[in-house]
């Protein structure tokens, strides 16, 4: 009798396997950077090559690093939300314009609005590689000790900001006032 149940048991195992397997998002690769010091960078600013943008400027402060490019559709998608969030957020938004062309980036910020307190220009993508960036838009949250505490891959929305970022910001500011 039990041998007739074997195929059924096999099916049950497959169902469990696929139930969990198909819910995973293979596009989202966990970052090994979480809990580690943020890679330091110093790059020219997008709008002024003579000016430099460095995350050392934010030592002792929490900040958000948003990786974007004008070639990136998801970045255009998230831009309105980014503007709204950055407008109300106490945490400064640092931009990392990744593998882009300067005139296009400047035009983008002029046309769509600028959510960034400063935006670095990473033309050859090396800083992006240091941060383990593989597909814009990506958004990192760095605490006051310079440690990466969260990474979001895919366009940012108000909902995701409130769900994933705000609680971490509150917890981190409580831990290190």
């Amino acid at each position: 009798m039990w041998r007739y149940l074997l195929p059924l048991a096999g099916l049950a195992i497959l169902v469990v396997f696929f139930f969990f397997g198909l819910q995973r998002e293979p596009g989202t690769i966990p970052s090994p950077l979480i809990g580690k010091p943020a890679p330091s960078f110093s790059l020219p600013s997008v709008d002024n090559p003579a000016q430099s943008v460095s995350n050392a400027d934010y030592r002792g402060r929490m900040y958000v690093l948003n990786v974007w490019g004008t070639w990136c559709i998801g970045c255009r998608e998230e831009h309105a939300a980014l503007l709204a969030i950055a407008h109300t957020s106490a945490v400064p938004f640092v931009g990392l314009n990744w593998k882009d062309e300067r005139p296009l980036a400047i035009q983008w910020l002029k046309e769509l609005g600028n959510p960034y307190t400063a935006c670095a220009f990473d033309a050859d993508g090396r800083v992006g590689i240091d941060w383990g960036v593989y597909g814009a838009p990506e958004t990192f949250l760095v605490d006051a000790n310079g440690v990466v505490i969260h990474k979001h891959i895919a366009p940012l929305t108000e909902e995701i900001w409130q769900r994933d970022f705000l609680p971490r910001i509150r917890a981190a500011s409580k831990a290190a006032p």
Partner: protein
Amino acid sequence: MKRLLALLTLLLLVARAFGVDTGEEFADPALQARYERLTHDLRCLVCQNESIADSNAGLAADLRREVREMLSAGKSDQEILAFMTDRYGDFVLFRPPFVARTWLLWLAPALLLAAGAWIAVRIIRQKAQLARTDTDDSDLDSGSA
């Protein structure tokens, strides 16, 4: 036959022209061999089932550049792979390390093979048993006839 062979050899040479990697080759063949091996062992994170050697994504080209520069700078294979995993995690390796999280991945082929063999042996034994009883039956039949 000779002509066919010549044609096939030529096709082999042409394959390089279709390659994605347009970077210059290393003058040192040993370095070039290491470069080829490393870039084939590193996953392109944009198009996840391709190696960075085979992918024409922008990021893959950048990662090839990093590998090339690190090799020229005299870095070891371990150092280069560590550079990649520090940034992108074990996922970037097509051959992830054997750790607690990956033992099932590594052992699954052997386990499945063993399970398959066990089932096969059982079925074969059963069939053999059946065949024997069949002939016994026919013996009985012929005996009774």
